[in-house]
Each structure stands twice: as C-alpha cells, then as structure tokens.
C-alpha cells in the first residue's frame, strides 16, 4: 500500500467519524426535548406505511428493544410517536419482555403494537425424525410464557424466530402452530424472522399462504441486496408486511471495526424502499433514539449521507466478479479470483470453513506473495489484492477444529 492510499484511507476515516459525531451532536437530547422530556414540536408530519394486509399502519421507524435496564428509553420512544416495539422470547432470558410488559401497563392496549419472536425448539424422535409434537407443545408453552411476561392476552405480531430455509418456513408443524396461536387469540398476525438466505425465506413466506409479515435483515452492504430487494417487492405485492432489521449492517464498513457506518444514512437508505413498512433499529441511548426517530418525519438523504454510504463501496466491497483482469500481471500466476472468493466466504458470508476448504484446494504456499516487493496485479474493482491474500491465507494455519 502506497503513501497516497494510506492518506486516502485516513481522510475517509476522519471524514466519516466527523460526520457521525456531527449527527450525534445534532440529535442531542438537550436540544431536542423540553424540560419534561417531551420532544419539541416538529412541523413535518409523521411518515406512515401500511403493514401488508394486516390493517396495521406504522411510522417508518420502530424500536428493536434490546435491553431491560432502561425502561425510560421505551417511554421516551412512545412520546416520540414510535408505535411498534419488537422483542423476543429469548432476549435477556425473558427480562426484555418483562420490562416491556411493565412499561405498557400505563398505556391503552390499542395505543402500541408489540411483536415478539418465539423460536421453534427442535428435537428428534427415536427414529431420527423431527418430533413435531414436541415443537408444537414447546412453541405454544413458550408463547404463553411470553404473554405472561408481557402482561398481555395477545401480541400483535408473532414471529417464528430465525428461519433461514424454505423447508423450515413451509414445515407443516410450524404453519399449524402459528395458525393455532392465531385462532386461540394469542396473536393477531403471524410471521417469520430471517437474517440468512432472505430471498429464499421471503419467497417461502409468500408461498405459505399463512404468514402475514416478514422481519428480514436488509442493508446497503449486503452483496445480495438486489435479490433481497426484489424478494421484498414480490412479497409486498402479495400483501405481506415487511419489517426491516440489521439496517446498520453491523455498524462498521470494515471487518476491523475502525470505519463506522453513518447509521442514520444506512437506515434512511433501507427505508427509501417503499415496500418496506418499517425498520426496527436497536436503540440503546437517548441520542440514538432521537436520531432514529427523527427519520419518521424526514426521510430525505443528504448529499453527505449518500457520500458516507459510498465509503464502503470505495473500499471495494467483497464480491469478486471473476473478470481475471488481475491474473496476467501476477508473476507467480496465483489464482487471485479464487483467493478473493475465499476472502468473500470468510468475511462476507462468514463461512470460514468453506474459505479454508477452497484455499486448501488451490494448492498454493501459505505465504504466496513472499518475495514480491510490491504487487503488480491490479484489480478492476480496486481490491487491495496483497493485503487480502495475506489476510485470508492466515486461515490455512488455523486447525480445522477451531474453524466455525
């Protein structure tokens, strides 16, 4: 890496940090609320969207409730006009739901929307098949526990938590159990949450004819964002309500977590898609809450915000298109596209094992760039080829049992 490249990175880092700080400062609690903690009047109307065919209408920014030790955050969010609060059976061993139940005692039941997620417990029977009756029983028991914690007779949205394959979404046991929960009056609407293989899961939700809402991860950094967006459009057309999560893409552009993402810009980016009803960013402090809630009245992306999101792209992204532009210039004839693919497996898909297997199959030395004082191979997408090779090749030295 030359001096110019270092300077450019340093500049980008500084400018992003600067704009992130400015955003936080502008969202300062002291300036956005009066002495009673009420949000100062904002003339712009709240942007609301319909949640599929459920009949529920929501502000575009909701609240992914993350922790139980600050009920004041939830109370402030209610004052800010946020309606949907998203929790889960498993968050904080149930304390998250308990806290929400305690807070909501003070509000009319029809003044807020609560979504919770119950995971399907899986056990195999003696013959090695999935024990459907066990899953049904535990799912309904866990839903009852959640309702008790929430002090409610029903939740507005009940998600099956964390599905990542078509077969799981369409498993008759799950379709029956959510239908049963709805018939029992314990859930007004049912859905699925997913953060892996989203297009496949969303298509299955459409095909199910049972689920009404999908909670999906979607963000500007996803390599497969176009496919997710397309699936979302199809689902919206089919009347499925779409709720977005993981919009901040982990909060950093880089895997070293040095280059913070402009979270407000990332959230706005996702919500530009009108097929998405609302997003559930996790708010852990008042500044963050004020910043996110402000988007409910102003979704316009500034030029600076657009530029901030491009920072990650200028760093090259992860997807190697396999053009082989780099190959002829490598004096060692390294299979660079394959190594870049391994890098993508490791850092994009988080499939370290797959990355390690691919590297092993290439039959190259552990330090393939040794002896080259500088790199003559150039990438059409400006990937930092030698750094990435050096980085991902470390996987070859890790014993297999330590690879996830």
């Amino acid at each position, binding site marked *: 890496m030359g001096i110019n490249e270092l300077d450019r990175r340093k500049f980008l880092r500084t400018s992003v940090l600067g704009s992130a700080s400015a955003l*936080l400062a502008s969202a300062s609690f002291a300036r956005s609320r009066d002495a009673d903690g009420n949000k100062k009047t904002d003339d712009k109307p709240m942007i609301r969207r319909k949640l599929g065919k459920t009949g529920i209408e929501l502000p575009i920014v909701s609240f992914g409730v993350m922790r139980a030790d600050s009920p004041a955050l939830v109370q402030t969010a209610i004052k800010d006009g946020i309606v949907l609060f998203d929790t889960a059976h498993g968050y904080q061993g149930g304390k998250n739901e308990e806290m929400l139940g305690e807070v909501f005692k003070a509000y009319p039941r029809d003044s807020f929307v609560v979504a919770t997620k119950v995971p399907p417990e899986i056990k195999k029977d003696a013959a090695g098949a999935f024990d459907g009756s066990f899953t049904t029983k535990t799912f309904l028991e866990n839903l009852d526990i959640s309702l008790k914690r929430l002090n409610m007779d029903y939740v507005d949205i009940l998600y099956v938590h964390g599905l990542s394959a078509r077969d799981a979404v369409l498993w008759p046991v799950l379709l029956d159990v959510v239908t049963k929960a709805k018939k029992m009056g314990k859930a007004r609407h049912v859905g699925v949450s997913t953060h892996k293989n989203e297009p496949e899961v969303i298509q299955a939700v459409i095909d199910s004819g049972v689920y009404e809402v999908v909670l999906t991860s979607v963000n500007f950094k996803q390599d497969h964002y176009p496919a997710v967006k397309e699936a979302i459009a199809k689902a919206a057309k089919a009347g499925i309500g779409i709720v977005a999560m993981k919009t901040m893409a982990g909060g950093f552009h880089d895997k070293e977590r040095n280059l913070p993402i402009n979270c407000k810009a990332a959230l706005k980016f996702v919500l530009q898609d009108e097929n998405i009803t609302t997003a559930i960013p996790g708010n*852990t402090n008042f500044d963050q809450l004020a910043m996110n809630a402000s988007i409910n009245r102003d979704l316009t992306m500034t030029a600076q915000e657009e530029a901030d999101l491009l920072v990650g792209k200028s760093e090259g992204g992860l997807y190697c298109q396999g053009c082989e532009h780099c190959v002829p210039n490598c004096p060692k004839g390294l299979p660079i596209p394959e190594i870049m693919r391994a890098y993508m497996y490791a850092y994009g898909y988080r499939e370290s*094992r797959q990355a390690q297997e691919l590297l092993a199959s290439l039959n190259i030395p552990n330090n393939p760039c040794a002896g080259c004082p500088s790199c003559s191979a150039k990438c059409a997408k400006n990937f930092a080829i030698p750094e990435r090779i050096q980085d991902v090749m470390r996987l070859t030295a890790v014993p297999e049992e330590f*690879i996830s």
Partner: protein
Amino acid sequence: MRYQSICGSVIFLVVLLSVPALYGQESFFPQLPGWKITQDDPVYNANNLWDVIDGAADLYLEYCFVDLHIARYFNMDSMEVKAELYRHASSEDAFGMYAQERDTGYNFIPIGVQGYLQQGVLNFITGSYYIKLSTFQTGVKTNDALLAIGKKLVEHLKQKNTMPRLFQVFPKERKLPHTEQYVARNFLGYSFLNAAYTAAYKDSSAFKIFVIDAAEQEKAKSILVDYLKAIPKEAVTRLDTEKYQIQDPHIGVMVLQEFDRYICGMINYPNGKIRDEYLKKVITSLSRNFK
C-alpha cells in the same frame, strides 16, 4: 465507537493469547466419567453470533463477547445436556452479560462466581466465561447431572471466582440480594455513561446505588459535564462542590458525586439522610481501597 475499538483490540488479544493454551489443552470442555462429549457445532464469534442467538447477539457484543463454544454431553440414560460457553474479554463483561439475563427471583446456588439452577437449566459465570447448561429432560437426575457438569467445568477452566472488585464499595446494609449489575455501555440510556456498577437497595422505598469507573479523573469530570449539559438547568441543584441533586426527566431523582476517577450516585432514594449516609459509605470505601 472508541469503546468498540478498545473492545475489538481486547478480544483480539484474548483470542491470540488463548491459542497456545488451547493447543496444550484438550478442549474447553472436560471429560466426565459416564458421559460422552460431542462438539459438532461451530465456534461462533462476534461476526456470526447472530446465526445462533439472533437479535440477542447485540447485547453480547456490548459486553466484549469473544466467542461461543458448544458441546453436548450424553450419558447412558439417554440424557443430553447442551453446554454453551460464552467467552468474554474480561470477568466484568461476563458478569455484566450474565446479570442482564439473571432474575433476582431465581434459585441461586453456590457455583463459580454466581449461578442459578432452574428446571433443566444451570446458568453461571466463572471468571470471563458465562456458561449455560440446558437439557430437555426433566426429573430428579437432571439437576444432579447439570450440577456435576457445571462443577467440573469450573474446576477445568481454572478461573478466579470472585465478584468484580468494585462491588466491594457497595454498602451491605439493606442491599437486595443478587441485584448487582455491571452495565458496560449506555447506563440509564445515556451514551456517555459507561462502565457502571449498580445494586438495588430497600429502605422505606427501593433505591439504587451506582459507581461509574471513568478510568481517569479528567474523564470523570468530563462525563459529569456531559450529563449536566443534557439535563435542563432548573433540574439541577448543587449540594456541594462536587455533589449534585438532579431531577432527571427520564430516571427520577438522582444524586451524583465525583470522586477521583469515579462518579458515584443514587437513584430514587427515600430521603436526604439515606442519600448522605450511603454516599458517604461508598466514597469512604473508594478512598480506602481504590484510590
């Protein structure tokens, strides 16, 4: 953001330092007579914890989560116990995460630093490990099995089994059991209040005491300035040079006192007498043991 970078560096060091130790050690999970172990699950880290605990992962990351190791123990009675070992960067972080999920009404038992046994579940901490043992089976033998595996893990991991040291400054009188918490970030919902130790008390009414470790005296001063800036001026009463009573619009009545690198405070205390008595005890203990 600075906190996350520090967290990232610490995690890197923990992983790096543990690699040689792991080579000399068979596994994080000890063998037990009569039990077979399988370790087919992947090891999860901060980049893919989502894959196994979904949205709950966010909070673990706030507590400098390093990695998650999973094993399954099987015995002759077809009992299966799932052992999840969450490794954090420090014992404070492990305790903090554990306390976020702990309820004061649980059945606490003496194991590791602290732990509880519920039906089919044994959760506890030992040093920087937060360990969760669970089984679908029920019956008398279940608890015995969980305890046997839990105790063996404590022995095997050879960690220090004491509460985070700063809890020593909290007065014992009227303290409610098992209410200690370590809040790594965003204490009370304020982005500048980090590394807070708290415990709940009950006199004529319930109140909380907290101590924030700002690491440096200058930092403690700047945190206090930030907080006072975030509160309407009319809500702040100066009681002493470094002692303020505040009517926080979100939290309620609060007292704050700066002492060296620490900020001590109380929330919703019943009266001024209790406030002064307890705060004095905390400050005295800090000056004796932590200055």
